[in-house]
Structures are given as C-alpha cells and as structure tokens.
C-alpha cells in the first residue's frame, strides 16, 4: 500500500509504517514508555528526513499515551499532583531544548549530539534494566523473592532539597524541586531526541524519587502525554516538520498496539517483560554506537541554506 507523505516528500509503504506503529504501541502499553526511542531511529533508517521523523514520532507518542493514561487513571494509578509538577518542568525543558536544538544545529553538530545522547541514555538504562531483571529472575529461581522489594527509598540528594510537599498517591514527602528538575531534563530530551522520555522517566521516578511503583507508569504516561503535545506544537511552529499523514499511519498502528500491550502486560511476568525491553533498548544503543564509532551511515550530509 503506497502512501505519499506530503511533508516528508516521498512515497512509503503504508503497511510498514503501521507495523512500526504497532510495535511501538505494544511497547508503550506494556512498559509505559512512549516508544519514540524506537520510532525515530527506525523512521530515519527507512529514509524519512530526521526532523520529520522526530516531529511526527512526538505526535504519535501522544496518541499512544492517551489510552494508557485513561487506563491507569481508572485504576487510580496517576499521581496528578506529581504529574503537574513534572509537566511544568517539562514545558520549561521543551523550550530550553528548542533553544539548544537551534544552537547545535547552527554549530553543525546536532546529529552527532543526538546520537551520543541516544547511546549514553539507552546504553545506561538498558544495561541497568538488564542487570536488575536478570538478578530478579535468578532470585526467583532460588525462591528468595520479595526480600529486596521491602521498601523503596528515594535518593539522599532528593531528601536534601528544601520546601517539602506531600505527594499522597506517590507516598512521598519530598521537595517538588526534584520532580521539577526531572521534568526539565525529560523535556529537553523530548525536544532533542523526538522521544517521550518514558524510558528515562520511569526508572528515575522509581529509583531517584522513590515513588510508589503503583503510580509510576501512569504518572510517567501523564507527563509524556502533555510534553509530546507541547513538542508537536513547537515543531509545528519552528521546523514545520510534522507530517500529518505519517503521524496518522503511525497512530493507527500504535493506538492498536497500545491496547494489545496492556493485555500482554496483564498475563506476562514483569521480569521477563523488563528483560525484553532492556534487550531492545541495548540493541538500539549498540546500533547507534556503531554509527558513531565505527562507520557513520553517511559521511556527507546535506543541509538546505
């Protein structure tokens, strides 16, 4: 099924794009990550211009997270107070990100920086997740589960911040500055990398803020939803690279995939799921590292003047 993309300026196989949407949708349904980290590189690999890929992927992630937010809010799994704080930070971050994006673009290093960010972020998080899920799996074989899941504590740095608030649903009494800063960082990443930032937000909420695991995925999706909406608007104004046809195709796939994903999440073992996600994340990090260290996809790149 050939589809002509009016903004990307080329014809693609619509079914391939929908299938890509399904794959990322499943990821978002199962793990509460937006899946943008998978969409953007694969779209670029398929021949879509990088800015169009990043902008349209942000639009797609919005759609994939909507149904997730609804599903989690029905189960009382969204801490709106915490979400509001991270979204506020995210808005600042997205605008900062747009600034950084322009600076790097005029310096001619935007693609290099994006690749380095991908490798560092995905490599670290994928590695951590793989180690943890492997340890848990080994632990459950020994029959010693439940020992280390005693009580999550937030990072000492978070405890030292002033002006504490009570976040009832997250079970926290911490300064809002922590989540605010986290929001800013995720906002910058979203703007730069065209990702929702869920793969970064979920572990940070768990291990740095120490939020109750029950509300982590829902709150992260809530944050992603609003930040990607903002990023789509910023792209529509600055790069004008949102391709509505491309985004529509991705959406058809990803909203379906997201629903399938939540079903899978209900019966699959979380340790197995996390191991799978870790493997996917690591594979992409390796692919990017190869392009950065061994052989770039293209030695020459063309920028319109």
């Amino acid at each position, binding site marked *: 099924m*050939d589809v*002509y993309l*009016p903004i990307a*300026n080329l014809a693609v196989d619509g079914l391939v794009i929908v299938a890509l949407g399904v794959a990322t949708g499943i990821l978002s349904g199962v793990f509460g990550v937006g899946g943008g980290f998978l969409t953007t590189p694969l779209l670029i690999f398929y021949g879509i211009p990088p800015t169009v890929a990043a902008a349209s992927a942000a639009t797609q992630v919005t759609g994939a997270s909507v149904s997730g937010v609804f599903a989690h809010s029905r189960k009382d799994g969204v801490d709106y107070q915490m979400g509001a704080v991270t979204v506020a930070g995210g808005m600042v971050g997205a605008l900062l990100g747009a600034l950084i994006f322009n600076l790097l673009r005029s310096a001619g290093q935007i693609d290099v920086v994006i690749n380095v960010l991908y490798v560092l972020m995905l490599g670290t998080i994928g590695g951590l997740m793989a180690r943890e899920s492997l340890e848990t799996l080994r632990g459950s074989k020994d029959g010693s589960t439940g020992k280390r899941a005693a009580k999550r504590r937030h990072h000492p740095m978070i405890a030292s911040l002033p002006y504490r608030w009570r976040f009832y649903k997250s079970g926290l009494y911490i300064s809002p500055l922590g989540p605010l800063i986290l929001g800013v960082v995720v906002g910058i990443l979203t703007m730069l990398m065209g990702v929702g930032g869920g793969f970064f937000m979920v572990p940070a909420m768990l291990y740095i803020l120490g939020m109750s695991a029950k509300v982590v995925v829902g709150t992260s999706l809530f944050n992603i939803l609003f930040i990607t909406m903002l990023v789509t608007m910023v792209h529509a104004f600055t790069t004008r690279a949102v391709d509505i046809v491309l985004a529509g195709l991705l959406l058809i796939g990803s*909203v379906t995939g997201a*629903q399938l994903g939540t079903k899978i999440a209900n019966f699959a073992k979380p340790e197995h799921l996390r191991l799978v996600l870790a493997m996917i994340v690591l594979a992409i990090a390796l692919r990017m590292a190869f392009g950065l260290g061994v052989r770039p996809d293209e030695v*020459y*790149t*063309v920028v319109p003047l």
Partner: protein
Amino acid sequence: MTRLLAFLMALLLAMPAFAQSEDPILVPDISQHEIVLQQGFTGATLLLYGAVLDPADSDAQYDVVVVLKGPSEPILLREKERIFGIWVNSEESAYRSVPSFYAMASSRPVLDIVDERTAAIYELGLDYLQLSPSGSIDPAEQQRFSEGLVDLRQRQGLYAQYDEGVEISQGVLYRADIPIPSNVVAGRYVAETFAIYDGRVISSATSEVQVFKEGFELGVEEAANDYSFFYGLFAVGLSVFMGWAAGRLFALV
C-alpha cells in the same frame, strides 16, 4: 504512441520549412509535461524523445545526450571525520546552486562523444556538474566534497547517469527513458537535449516538466506552512482522539 505518430507527422510536414537552414534541427518532446505529487505517486518514468533533422547531410551519425535537471537550491554540505574515535561533523562547504535532481542519458559513454572540456561546458555527466561552491577554494578538497555529494544523491536516486541510455533509430529518431523517484522536490524541471557530431554540440533544445503537489497534498503543505498553529493543534487533536477512540473500542471487545 498516437502522440508520437502525430508528432512525426507534424515533423514531416514541417520539413520543407527547415530545409533552408544549414544547421541540423533538434525537435524534442517529453511523454508528460506534468508530474503530480499525490497519493499513489511512487515515482514515474519520463520518456524523452524526438528527432534530429539534418537538411545538409542526412548520412551523418549523430550522438544524442539528454539531461534532465530539477530546480537548483543553495545547500551546505557537511563531512564527518573521526575525532577521538567518534565520527563528528568537521569540514563543511556551501554551494550556491545545486540541482535537486540530475539525470543524464547518452547514446554512447560521454567521453566517447566529446572531450572533457565540452562535457564540462554543457555539464554532461555526473563528473562534470558545475556545483558552484562558495566557500573553500582548494581544488582537491572541492573535488572530494563534490564526489561525496554526487555519491549521496546517487544512492537517494536523485542523481543518475545512463551511458547508452539514449536509443537512436535510423539516425533520426531518439528516445531515452528517465526514471523519476518519489522523493523529488516540486518545481520546474528542464530537459536539455544535445545533438553532437564530431565532438561538437551542433544543436540543442530544451523542454520543461512541471512537478507539483495538488489537492490534499498541496493543502497539507500549505496548512503546515501558513497555519502552523491550527495545523499543530489538529495534529495534537487527531492523536488524542485516536488514542481515546482506540481505548473505547477495545473496552467494548
């Protein structure tokens, strides 16, 4: 085919009029003068055809070269270099006008037809493109950058060269098929046809192809550029609605 026949008829009727002049006359045409970028467009093949009429010496063996060029644009070309083990952008070169599309077909390899100087004057072939760099003047470096650009665009299907891509029948009629990929930009494309004899271009003619968006595709492009705010809102609205609708649908299942 009927178009081709009608064209030939017109040509024969016009012959006596041409007979006065000494120079051969080139009558080119293209199978279609418009390409619409829209749903279902996956590329096209243009047939460039025509005839070389030589009133003086009908036995002469001509060579024919056709060149199809897309609209030119100013670009910046960046080159990656490995620094401390990482490939980063280092050198760059600006070009004032680089054709967004270039395809050349010739009846024989270009250097068998003309010398290098002539090839460079008429920009016959990928090696002889005049890319008008505006920055560095080091010829070796310019050469490297030009080759990089040509190689990149060749792999994108935007630059191509077909040696022996022109078919000449009975020394008069010529035809060449030029494939157009789907990733071409909109604008005015110019087809130049050269009749070459004894290493000299003895006749040349141009014709045009307009490549443009229409209907839905044009609307989307204009909306994205002129009504950015509403376009962005629509994109956001669409994604929220589709996410919500899918949730409701699956809740029913």
